[in-house]
């Protein structure tokens, strides 16, 4: 019953976010600040993880290629497919649910417990729009993060496979182009876009409607991470069913 209530409250929140708009010049500033904090601030960790996981995927594939009938081009092919289809969009989004998500929940949540949100409302400002709209707009640039993750994941795979001596440069590049389907990229970015909206709004919901004090802010961040991950995974399943099968 309370889930139904929360879901209803979540959609009312979204409606409120797109309600009365904050003054344009202020909003613009807020959006740039959010892009800096949510997107630019995440590039480092995303680059680091992508490069090394890409490498590991390549090594794992190479180590499991014992059958001489299977061509070595499979290393690059498998790395490309897993990075583009799942690793970059989904796995990185789960990481972002931890990094960006908990930041959003705790920053909005601490504004709630210290009455900063009430202060906005008393001034006659639509606090949902002021706080959450800039985050949603900033997250529209999230596909760039995933594009970088894809690129660095493949570079990582190349480095591990070629410099690690598992496969030659030419075979790797051939494998990389094997059976390439443009629609896979489209699929990956459609889900990335949906994930971006989930990453911006579910943590915001948990922060905005939290009750209590500083201790509860930490609790809300954890709950937000769990729910964001669950919704990401379920959405991933549904989108994959709809678009690929």
């Amino acid at each position: 019953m309370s889930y139904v209530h929360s879901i209803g409250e979540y959609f009312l929140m979204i409606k409120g976010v797109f309600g009365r708009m904050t003054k344009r010049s202020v909003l613009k500033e807020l959006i740039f600040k959010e892009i800096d904090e949510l997107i630019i601030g995440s590039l480092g960790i995303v680059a680091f993880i992508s490069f090394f996981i890409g490498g590991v995927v390549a090594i794992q594939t190479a180590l499991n290629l014992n059958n001489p009938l299977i061509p070595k081009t499979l290393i690059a092919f498998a790395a490309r497919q897993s990075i583009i289809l799942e690793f970059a969009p989904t796995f990185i989004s789960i990481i972002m649910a931890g990094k960006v998500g908990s930041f959003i929940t705790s920053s909005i949540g601490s504004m709630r417990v210290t009455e900063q949100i009430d202060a906005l409302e008393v001034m006659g400002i639509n606090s949902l729009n002021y706080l959450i709209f800039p985050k949603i707009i900033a997250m529209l640039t999230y596909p760039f993060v995933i594009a970088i993750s894809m690129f660095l994941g493949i570079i990582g795979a190349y480095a591990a496979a070629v410099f690690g001596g598992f496969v030659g440069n030419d075979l790797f590049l051939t494998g990389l182009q094997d059976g390439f389907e443009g629609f896979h990229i489209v699929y990956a970015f459609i889900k990335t876009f949906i994930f971006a909206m989930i990453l911006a709004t579910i943590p915001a919901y948990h922060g905005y409607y939290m009750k209590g004090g500083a201790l509860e802010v930490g609790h809300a961040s954890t709950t937000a991470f769990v729910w964001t991950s669950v919704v990401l995974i379920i959405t991933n399943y549904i989108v994959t069913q709809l678009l690929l099968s």
Partner: protein
Amino acid sequence: MIEIKNLHKGFGGEEILKGIDYVFETGKTNLVIGQSGSGKSVLLKCMLGLFKPEEGTIEYDGTAYSSFTDEEQRELRKEVGMLFQGGALFDSMTVEENVMFPLRMFTKQRKRELKTRVAEVLKRVNLDGNENKYPAEISGGMQKRVAIARAIVNKPKYLFCDEPNSGLDPTTATIIDKLIQELTRENNITTVIITHDMNSVLEIGENIAFLKDGVLAWKGDKSQIFKTEDKTVTDFVYSSDLFKKVRDAQLKGY
């Protein structure tokens, strides 16, 4: 002047405010006192329009709040300053940005005009020179003064304060109380102060409304409250030993 008439407000069947009538006068510090849980904050939130009363009216200078359109309510909010219990400063902004915030939101002035006004108000609360500090870098008393500056920067006609000196040492609390009283007089503001601090009552209790169990149990001013025989009031006022001793000393004629 803010007049409330027959105000009722409850939550889930439990009535918190049971029909309150009171007039908050302009240019004076109007104190609402009472124990924790007596409904002071609920009363304040009804007046601010954050809660909708089940019955009764709240009139701002003769016009009922409920008769305002959404647009008029927003216009009214620009005339309202609110000092929150913890200050509620935006901690991602500097002192100057905090005080400038209502001006940026609601006026079309240029940056230089805004800065001039902010400097003027910060000077008034004795905080000039702290423009570029963040709330976390200044003391609790200074945060309260920044919050006061932010509440009055847009020249409000109405000022609401929820326990303005909770969490402050007695000296700082007195400074804050006096500052609110001076600003009220200088700018002819209708000021409503929620408190359970008897020191504030003694310092700035120009009008006092005593809430108990959701009703207005007593009203008067600071000279009357220490003389009244009304038991509900004396139980509250003399719940502290210090005030008991002061009274006993007075009775003995010291």
